[in-house]
């Protein structure tokens, strides 16, 4: 193995890791806010990719330009999912945890089924994008432009999220609701409103990821599944609810996956991620940066 291919693998792993992180952070945000694991997260990603596909077909603009629109669409999807499903599920009197799991799990199946009905199971691609298929060769290392842009967007999104949480009133309300949902009601914060926006925000983040992913990945009603699985591991690894944890864990997962696939036969590449995950669960159950 040459130095060049090692650097290539590390670079590819890091770029993919940034996208994994962006997918995972929305999940982490929602979990941190209200202790609900959104099992429809992969389906949100899929919807974002179809939104990108549809909007590109409609407007002939580039997914990069359309990203804010896609994020807005997904914000609505997330907010509706909370108002229409999760809010009702949280009223359960018994077995609350199970009800929440099955509510979002059921939502996932419904979204997938309806998508197959509406969009057909044909594989789609966003055609003729500016960044699609371009690579920058740097001394024998190839850096695909879509992934580079994706990495950059991911870093910007994390920065924006961090500013939102630490510098705005809404961020404070979010933090307060996370600490004690009952007490915030006493100081006049509408818990439901914060939750709705929280779900919207979580979905909007995965919307950004979906817009990026639609440039270089095929689109299909089942496309969310493999990504969602990695997102759950990423969130658990980084620590439930931790935004910085999601970033660090996403990068780690990307690197470990790329390295495992190089050392072991690639069909066993998930072993690295899940091995690491098991280790963290045994040694540090709250995750690397979790405060749970």
């Amino acid at each position: 193995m040459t130095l060049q291919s090692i650097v290539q693998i590390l670079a590819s792993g890091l770029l993919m890791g940034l996208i994994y992180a962006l997918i995972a952070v929305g999940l982490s945000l929602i979990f941190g806010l209200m202790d609900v694991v959104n099992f429809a997260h992969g389906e949100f990603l899929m919807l974002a990719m179809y939104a990108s596909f549809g909007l590109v077909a409609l407007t002939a603009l580039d997914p990069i330009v359309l990203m804010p629109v896609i994020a807005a669409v997904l914000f609505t999807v997330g907010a509706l999912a909370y108002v229409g499903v999760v809010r009702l599920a949280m009223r359960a009197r018994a077995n609350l945890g199970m009800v929440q799991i099955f509510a979002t799990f059921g939502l996932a199946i419904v979204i997938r089924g309806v998508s197959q009905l509406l969009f057909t199971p044909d594989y789609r691609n966003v055609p003729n994008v500016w960044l699609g298929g371009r690579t920058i060769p740097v001394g024998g290392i190839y850096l695909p432009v879509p992934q580079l842009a994706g990495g950059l967007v991911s870093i910007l999104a994390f920065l924006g999220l961090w500013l939102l949480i630490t510098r705005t009133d809404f961020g404070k309300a979010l933090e307060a609701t996370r600490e004690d949902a009952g007490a915030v009601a006493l100081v006049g914060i509408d818990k439901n409103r914060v939750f709705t926006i929280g779900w919207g925000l979580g979905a909007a983040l995965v919307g950004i990821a979906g817009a990026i992913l639609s440039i270089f990945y095929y689109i299909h009603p089942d496309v969310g599944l493999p990504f969602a699985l990695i997102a759950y591991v990423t969130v658990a690894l980084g620590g439930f609810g931790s935004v910085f944890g999601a970033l660090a864990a996403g990068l780690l997962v990307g690197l470990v996956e790329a390295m495992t696939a190089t050392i072991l036969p690639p069909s066993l590449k998930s072993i690295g991620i899940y091995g690491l995950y098991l280790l963290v669960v045994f040694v540090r159950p709250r995750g690397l940066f979790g405060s749970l």
Partner: protein
Amino acid sequence: MISRRSFVAGTALTAASLSTGARAQASEVSVGVLFPTSGSGAQVGIDAIQAINVALDVINNPHPDLELPLAKGSGLPGLGGAKLRIVTADHQSDPQKGRAEAERLITQDKVSALIGSYQSAVAATISQTSERFSVPYIASDNSSPSLTRRGLKYIFRASPHDEMFSATMFDFLDGLKKAGQKVDTIALFYEDTIFGTDSSNVQRKLAGERGYKVVADVKYRANTPSLTAEVQQLKAADADVLMPSSYTTDGILLIKTMSELGYKPKAILAQAAGFSEKALYDAVGKQIEGAITRGSFSLDLAAKRPTVGLVNAMFKAKSGKDMNDNTSREFMATIVLADAINRAKSTDGAKIRDALAMTDIPGEMTIMPWKRVKFDENGQNNDADAVLLQWLGEKFVTVYPTELAIAAPKFPMSKA
């Protein structure tokens, strides 16, 4: 609570209805059709059912212009003109669901035979179930050689398996080598279910026997989110011929990742599956102009055999697509089965099985480039020949074998 007596009675009743009732002479014969119609293989399954519906039309309605068994009349004359109908089931590409659905079709819907299933891994469980209930299973488009090597009596496959396909692929490479092309090294790239594993085993063996060096042997996880590290290995090896065995999703990702990492393979010689699907070429066709895939069907045959063009037109009217490697085999499997049911003059699984074993359909009565359809003791048709198709100018062109070829292969594919 159900008493033991009523339970026993109920079971006996079910068993009785299973053995006689619904399977007696009927004006309709039901065939169970198992394909993935949801999940990542869904489009293949939906197309498969369309192809089978075309076959039903051919069998059930008079088509005097088609040179196919049972096409000219209507229904199955051996069963008093009974019509063939299908009951579809979705196995979601999952071997366990395939087994359960096969059992349901046999016990609840009382089907006389089964057709399926695209993925070889699913065919493995379906064929075991069909054996247990003595109902024939027609492996329409499963290509793993091992399926017809397990001593099962109720599995039949009219199309070639991957050993036959791979032999054709290596015959082709031998020919190129003789013609002075540099073809010394190959790279194997295959998914980790029974299809990819079986395919690569055969290819590895043939490469060894015929003196090709395998410079990369990459087994990858199916439906993975990223293939960067895998493609990096292919690129480092830079073989003369890249031989992928992949379904559509991984095929698309493979091509996209190759172009992102600046890797242009000298030639691609694919074990069909995803590389037979138009979806893949719609997505990345421009990047792999000149890719070659094996197939068991060639639209170019229509020039010699008008039936091929007519059947394709019927399929296109239903689905908006041309027939491909998969849909043609699914169509043919239905015709072969109907021919056997007609000769069996019965809807009983065991009798249909015996009739299938006696099948002898000449190649001219099919839409395939096969010599004939005749099953060996394992249910495999050894007279099915493969073709190689090259993706040139946005369509498939037959390039091998020479007697069917309409163009010389472009090799290596990246040649200007």
